């Protein structure tokens, strides 16, 4: 027996639901950030992220599979040409849902769903490899410069550490 999709059902039937989700995905890929109800945002998230995964694959077969869902060439092109390169380094979690309060009129809980297009700033996963390299730099920095240094390290250090760690892994 097929497992039902997670979350509440939308629309008047399965076809209506597919169309609703496809139209929401088109709007999301066109505008990068859309406001909708919390329920729809939660249903849209897996649909959109799956399409982004196809876009990252980038071949013609993937493009046709996305086009079969979206039915919109402009949005599909936008997804493959603009969005996919920006999330190339991101390992899933391409969308972000933020709750924004209640809609005037029917008091429906609203949310903004947006694509995470900013560069990935990964948490130091390879702590054992990165920590010894980072520690001497931090301790060597003079106390007077500390406020600036802290801010810079937060921005710069993880990227540098990860590239180093990645290089080390490749070398091994």
């Amino acid at each position, binding site marked *: 027996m097929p497992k039902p999709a997670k979350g509440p059902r939308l629309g008047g039937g399965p076809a209506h639901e597919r169309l609703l989700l496809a139209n929401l995905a088109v709007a999301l890929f066109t505008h990068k950030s859309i406001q909708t109800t919390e329920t729809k945002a939660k249903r849209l998230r897996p649909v959109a992220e799956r399409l982004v995964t196809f876009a990252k694959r980038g071949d013609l077969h993937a493009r046709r599979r996305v086009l079969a869902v979206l039915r919109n060439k402009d949005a599909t092109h936008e997804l493959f040409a603009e969005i996919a390169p920006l999330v190339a380094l991101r390992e899933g979690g391409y969308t972000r849902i933020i709750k*924004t309060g209640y809609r005037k009129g029917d008091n429906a809980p609203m949310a903004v769903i947006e694509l995470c297009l900013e560069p990935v700033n990964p948490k130091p996963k390879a702590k054992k490899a990165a920590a010894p390299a980072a520690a001497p730099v931090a301790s060597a920095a003079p106390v007077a410069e500390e406020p600036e240094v802290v801010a810079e390290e937060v921005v710069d250090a993880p990227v540098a550490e990860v590239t180093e760690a990645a290089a080390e892994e490749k070398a091994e």
Partner: protein
Amino acid sequence: MAVPKRKQSRSNTRARRSQWKAENIQLVKSVENGQTVYRLPHRANVVTDSAGTELFLEYKGRKVADV
């Protein structure tokens, strides 16, 4: 079809309704600029300027949407 035999007494009605209770809203307490602020959890906040004009919605230091 089963039907009630008797009118329900005021006492029984009121005893049942006395169990309807509103629950307190769960709020998150934080201190901003020396003032204690209560907010709904996991919800974007409205950022206002000093005159109290609403500027935009903010969540975790990130601008979310216009008001």
